[in-house]
């Protein structure tokens, strides 16, 4: 993809995008770098239940684990779960959505049936059942479960997009030029769905991280790993709140929320790419106000006139 197209697609300096990127990149860096500098998150050699202090930035747990170190390790695992699950979900929704939409006919009918069933069968109980079915749940396995059970919504959207794209002239033109079907899907259709796919991916990542936390709360999270979810589960099991150990209970939740928030903000910016109407209006209103036009942006139009 050449720069021109990208630049055209990126909304000009958006506060939301910047904030979102800062949060997400920040947390990602934290996940990548921090574990090298923190102490072993599984070392119980510290005093238990220490409040935050110089030695332990975010205090310690009831077993003497360093909360900060756990958060860093948890960030790694949670992001891994999120990204893996998101990737799986997106690939599946591409297969079930785009292929169904583009190929049509019986392929479509079959793929759609599967999609509908996945939609109707609630994901959470199914996750619980599958999670309790699999006795040794590694991090990756949990991610796979979340991914495999979380693609249906995206597939529906992608299918309708593909349905409309397949009638686009440039797809017809590619057909007339003699392109093969798979190439049309991959080269002609997919790139145009990139912003949408990106948005769906981000959404799937957040969802997977939240769901992992939920599963962990129910004791169905990954067996042998530290994730934000398992930290929360431990904190809950250790009555962190009633014992006043907010430093144990609050940060994982806040991190999840922050990360989700960052992703949503980026998603927001992508939305504005997909839908130019979103891009122009609000920013335009701000710009006009800056330019000195006293415009109130709603149906009650203020005089647009500016001192000549």
């Amino acid at each position: 993809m050449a720069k021109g197209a990208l630049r055209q697609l990126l909304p000009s300096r958006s506060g939301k995008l910047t904030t979102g990127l800062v949060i997400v990149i920040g947390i990602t860096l934290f996940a990548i770098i921090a574990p090298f500098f923190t102490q072993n998150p599984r070392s119980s050699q510290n005093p238990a239940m220490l409040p935050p202090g110089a030695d332990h930035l975010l205090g310690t747990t009831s077993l003497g684990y360093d909360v900060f170190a756990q958060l860093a390790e948890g960030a790694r695992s949670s992001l891994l779960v999120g990204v893996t699950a998101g990737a799986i979900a997106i690939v599946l929704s591409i297969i079930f959505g785009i292929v169904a939409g583009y190929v049509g006919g019986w392929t479509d009918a079959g793929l759609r049936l599967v999609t509908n069933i996945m939609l109707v069968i609630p994901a959470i109980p199914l996750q619980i059942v599958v999670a309790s079915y699999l006795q040794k749940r590694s991090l990756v396995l949990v991610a796979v479960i979340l991914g495999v059970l979380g693609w249906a919504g995206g597939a529906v959207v992608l299918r309708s997009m593909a349905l409309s794209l397949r009638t686009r002239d440039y797809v017809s033109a590619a057909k007339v030029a003699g392109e093969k079907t798979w190439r049309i899907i991959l080269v002609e259709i997919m790139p145009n769905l990139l912003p949408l796919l990106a948005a769906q991916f981000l959404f799937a990542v957040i969802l997977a991280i939240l769901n992992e936390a939920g599963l962990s709360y129910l004791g169905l999270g990954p067996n042998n790993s530290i994730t934000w979810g398992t930290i929360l589960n431990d904190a809950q099991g250790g009555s962190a709140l009633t014992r006043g150990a907010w430093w144990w209970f609050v940060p994982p939740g806040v991190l999840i929320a922050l990360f989700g928030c960052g992703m949503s903000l980026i998603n927001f910016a992508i939305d504005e790419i997909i839908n130019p109407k979103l891009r122009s209006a609000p920013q335009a209103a701000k710009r006009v106000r800056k330019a000195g036009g006293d415009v109130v942006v709603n149906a009650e139009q203020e005089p647009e006139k500016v001192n000549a």
Partner: protein
Amino acid sequence: MTFFLRRIAFYAVTLWAAVSLNFLIPRLLPGDPVSIMLARLQRNGTISPAMERSVRVLLGSSGDTSMFQDYLDYWGRLFRGDLGVSVTRFPTPVADLIGGALPWTVGLIGVSTVIAFVIGIGLGAWAGWKRGTWVDAIIPSTTLLQSLPYFWLALLFVFLFAVSWGIFPIIGGYDVFNFNGPELSWAFVGSVIRHATLPGLTIVVSSVGGWLLGMRNMMVATLSEDYVTTAEAKGLRPRRVFMTYATRNAVIPSLTGFGVSLGFVVSGSLIMERVFSYPGLGKLMIDAVGNNDYSLMQGTFLIITLAVLAALFIMDLVQGLIDPRTRHHG
């Protein structure tokens, strides 16, 4: 195949597949349910062979019938409306357990979902209407709410509102200390509302952001539609433009999502119900899964599936009401 038949076929096939999956899933769970049940019983001392036999009978898998035969029996019983008897809550029939839990779930989660939807749509419409003003500045913060793990929020709320400040009760769907079960009185209704406040608040807080954002974006997009400009050019009052021209059109895409989320009301709340010991269906389901209670599991799954399908169906209809374009085409 006409469109009508196709729709029916969609519901029928989906239902069939979902119900069959419901049959299959519990059977895939690890562990022999009889021995697990017996292990639980042994906690209370030794058990007689007669008791062991009766557990086997109760759990339905005498071991000699084929899976396919079980499957046929399962459908047979479903058609007779027989969902079986729960083992963990023996001897309560599954239908009774579900019947007892459903009103609470629908009442709390359903109402909260509706409230969240209405608030989200309302605020979203307003934010879209006032796009580009200070209102837009608060939009990003709602994404934070949206991403909160909701059990975390629930625990925090309980800690603050119930335990620390004692404003709201800690457990139950009603005052379990003063009422011996549901009754028809104002006091009881008041108690129900008081007990629903905190869980309801959790749901509303953590889900309102999603609706708000979606609606706000749709609103912004709709406001640049020609018919809205036309409405303004027609000199209509802003209220009218806002309601009938902008909001009504912008809300349509959210409706399908709302339908689906209404369908998931039944299952979406399991964690919440556990935190608040709320007498709902979601918790029943987790318990069933945790205890290999086949009948209860199948029963709750069935209800959830039916609820989702019903919600989709109703939304098909509602959409027809709100959006005349779909009246003929579904």
